[in-house]
């Protein structure tokens, strides 16, 4: 457990210094832990656990947009779990019940838990269609079609800088829309 969290801290430091591969590895590593905690929280609140993936995506977006509030000299896990807890409580409240989330829910998580195969598209995907056209196209190109920033720029005849801006704005407005729900 300790080892795992030290590894996260190391990856996040690399990510902040500009290593996108380390960042992707970190996000992949924390996702099963977040998923298990979200499922446990939902189950305990008596809410359908197929919402877990929406909560996971919500947490990942918040981690991404608020990562400048992480103090690089502090361990990463407490910061992550604070955000996760906040988002999980939000989601459970939206589900109609006031609930207290146990911080241990995050710490004591087991190995890999695969994503549930849900028939409906996720909330993030649903909100995607409400974004301005440019942001939606760029997000779709990078997220769904796995295009690089460079390829996306060529495809839409935009500069790479403009693609980066549209991508970031798109992620920020997705998060804002999820919060307003």
């Amino acid at each position, binding site marked *: 457990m300790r080892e795992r969290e030290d590894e996260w801290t190391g990856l996040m430091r690399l990510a902040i210094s500009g290593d996108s591969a380390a960042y992707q590895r970190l996000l992949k590593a924390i996702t099963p832990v977040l998923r298990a905690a979200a499922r446990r929280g939902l189950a305990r609140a008596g809410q359908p656990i197929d919402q877990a993936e929406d909560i996971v995506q919500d947490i990942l977006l918040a981690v991404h947009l608020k990562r400048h509030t992480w103090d690089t000299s502090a361990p990463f896990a407490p910061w992550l*779990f604070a955000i996760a807890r906040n988002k999980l409580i939000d989601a459970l409240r939206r589900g109609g019940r006031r609930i207290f989330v146990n911080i241990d829910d995050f710490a004591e998580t087991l190995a890999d838990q695969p994503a549930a195969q849900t028939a409906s*598209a996720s909330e993030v995907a649903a909100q*995607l269609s409400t974004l301005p056209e440019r942001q939606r196209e760029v997000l779709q190109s*990078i997220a769904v079609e796995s295009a690089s920033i460079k390829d996306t720029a060529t495809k839409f005849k935009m500069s790479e800088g403009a693609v980066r801006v549209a991508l970031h704005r798109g992620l920020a407005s997705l998060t804002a829309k999820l919060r307003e729900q």
Partner: protein
Amino acid sequence: MRMDTDQLIRTLAADNSHRVRPVGFVLALALLAAAPVSILMFVSELGVRPDVMTAMHNPFFDLKFGVTLALACAAITVALHLSRPEANLRGWVWLLMIPAGLLVAGISGEMMMPQRLPMMTRLVGSNSRICMTAVPLMSLPLLAASLIGLRHGAPARPAVSGAIAGLMSAGLAATLYASHCTDDSPLFVATWYTLATALVTAIGALVGSKVLRY
């Protein structure tokens, strides 16, 4: 359209090069942008009191600035600390007690000196209504700015952070007001400045609970 979690992760990694300024930087910019508005309100409606040069030799006049600036500085420090998701108030509340401590010291100091006016007269003063109006009004631009700045953070408790933003802006606005007001008794400050600050703090908490959620 679908976006599964792996796709989202890849997208977030693609956005890794985007850098956001630290919360303190954004907060400073926002306050600097709002300060001229409050200063303009002050200059056009109130202005510095005419006897300011002699007043500066009165320690109780100077103490007002000590109290209001201590409040503003403590609130800024605490607000920045609370802009991190895992932070809490524990170990930080004492900072907010500094201005209160200064006031208590001022009141005891004044009690020990011979006074021309009775205590209640000093407490009630002659500017209480202006104080109660001017401080909250001059606070509003600063409060808006500090909430905008703090939105860049991830406060665990939006209402608490909003209240601290209220203390911050009231402290700054009261610093301006203190140079206009001719009531220098710490009893006046402890009563009316505190009431005005409490009002702004309540507004901050209310608005903060809505706009500081992340």
